[in-house]
């Protein structure tokens, strides 16, 4: 089955991984800007990273006939440095109109601190002023519930934001309902140990239905599995769900969400529609 991975950090993966993804049916991916495992020292460090995201990664994906899209921001971990964050936010517009740049992300919270909140709000302001889509990282483990609720508070307090253009990622059993009820999109991340498993993601589909839900691998430099979306497809089949429902979640939903970005130009594989059927 053809699928789209809506959240994967390909800068941290090898070209062999691109090839494997293509062989498993991946036709497109979106790569939010994130923490590279170390703190960058200057705004120019981020500028070079954004150049890699907007020029080199689409090229690598193209070698295997996949389409690569991306998102710009300074991530929550480095947002602890408010001065540097402001410099990066001021520089981001250099990239936001480029082809394949879908919006601002993955912004969010990491340890739920005041500085992280300040930088999150300043990203929201830029998104609202420029009418950008937003992709949000929620914290992990014991910080997730509190952080997700703080994020939803900040999103709901800003009346300028269209909730149907915001994706709140890494939801789990205790955070998914609050996100969907406010009209946001939700992403389930399949990740070893610290996040969700394919079977639990299927459970959440059964509990909440397939609307505004996506699954992703969030493959990155840490222990993660870039082919986690095919694992989910297999888990759905073993549970007896029809192919049409699986395709909605792994292909049509990402397409519907991304299509709201002005820089999203997608050529579907032969025989598949350009946009999700309504």
């Amino acid at each position: 089955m053809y699928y789209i991975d809506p959240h994967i950090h390909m800068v941290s993966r090898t070209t062999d991984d691109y090839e494997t993804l293509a062989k498993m049916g991946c036709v497109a991916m979106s790569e939010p800007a994130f923490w590279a495992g170390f703190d960058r020292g200057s705004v120019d460090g981020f500028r070079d990273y954004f150049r890699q995201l907007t020029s080199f990664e689409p090229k690598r994906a193209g070698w295997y006939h996949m389409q690569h899209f991306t998102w710009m921001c300074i991530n929550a971990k480095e947002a602890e440095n408010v001065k540097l964050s402001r410099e990066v936010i001021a520089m981001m517009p250099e990239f936001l109109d480029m082809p394949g740049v879908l919006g601002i992300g993955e912004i969010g919270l990491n340890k739920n601190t005041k500085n992280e909140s300040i930088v999150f709000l300043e990203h929201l302001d830029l998104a609202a002023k420029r009418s950008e889509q937003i992709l949000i990282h929620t914290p992990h483990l014991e910080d997730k519930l509190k952080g997700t609720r703080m994020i939803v508070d900040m999103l709901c307090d800003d009346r300028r934001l269209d909730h149907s253009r915001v994706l709140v990622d890494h939801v789990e059993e205790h955070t998914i309902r609050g996100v969907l009820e406010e009209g946001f999109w939700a992403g389930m991340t399949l990740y070893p140990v610290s996040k969700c498993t394919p079977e639990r993601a299927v459970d959440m589909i059964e509990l909440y239905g397939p609307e505004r839900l996506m699954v992703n691998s969030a493959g990155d430099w840490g222990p993660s599995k870039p082919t986690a979306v095919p694992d989910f497809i297999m888990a759905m089949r073993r549970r007896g769900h029809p192919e049409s429902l699986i395709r909605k979640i792994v292909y049509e939903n990402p397409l519907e969400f991304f299509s709201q970005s002005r820089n999203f130009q997608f050529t579907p594989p032969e025989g598949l529609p350009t946009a999700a059927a309504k």
Partner: protein
Amino acid sequence: MSVPISAPELLSRDFLEVRAKILELAACLDRFQRAAGSVEGDPRMRRIAEGLHLLQSADQPDRAEQVQLIFSLPYEEGWRGKWNV
């Protein structure tokens, strides 16, 4: 949305996996006890015990969500005002 396959089918499919996971937990707890030092009184052990207790409540349809809550820090109402952000 319902589960397409029946409960007996699911049980047959998942029984060995559930058994293996319980066994893994049992061996983990044995290991904590066998090793030098003590984890008694460690707040994480209390949360583990709470989690195990919760699994046995037959009338709880949302065990996964409840387990998540046991391992979550509390949210504080009015946090924006307190921080002035």
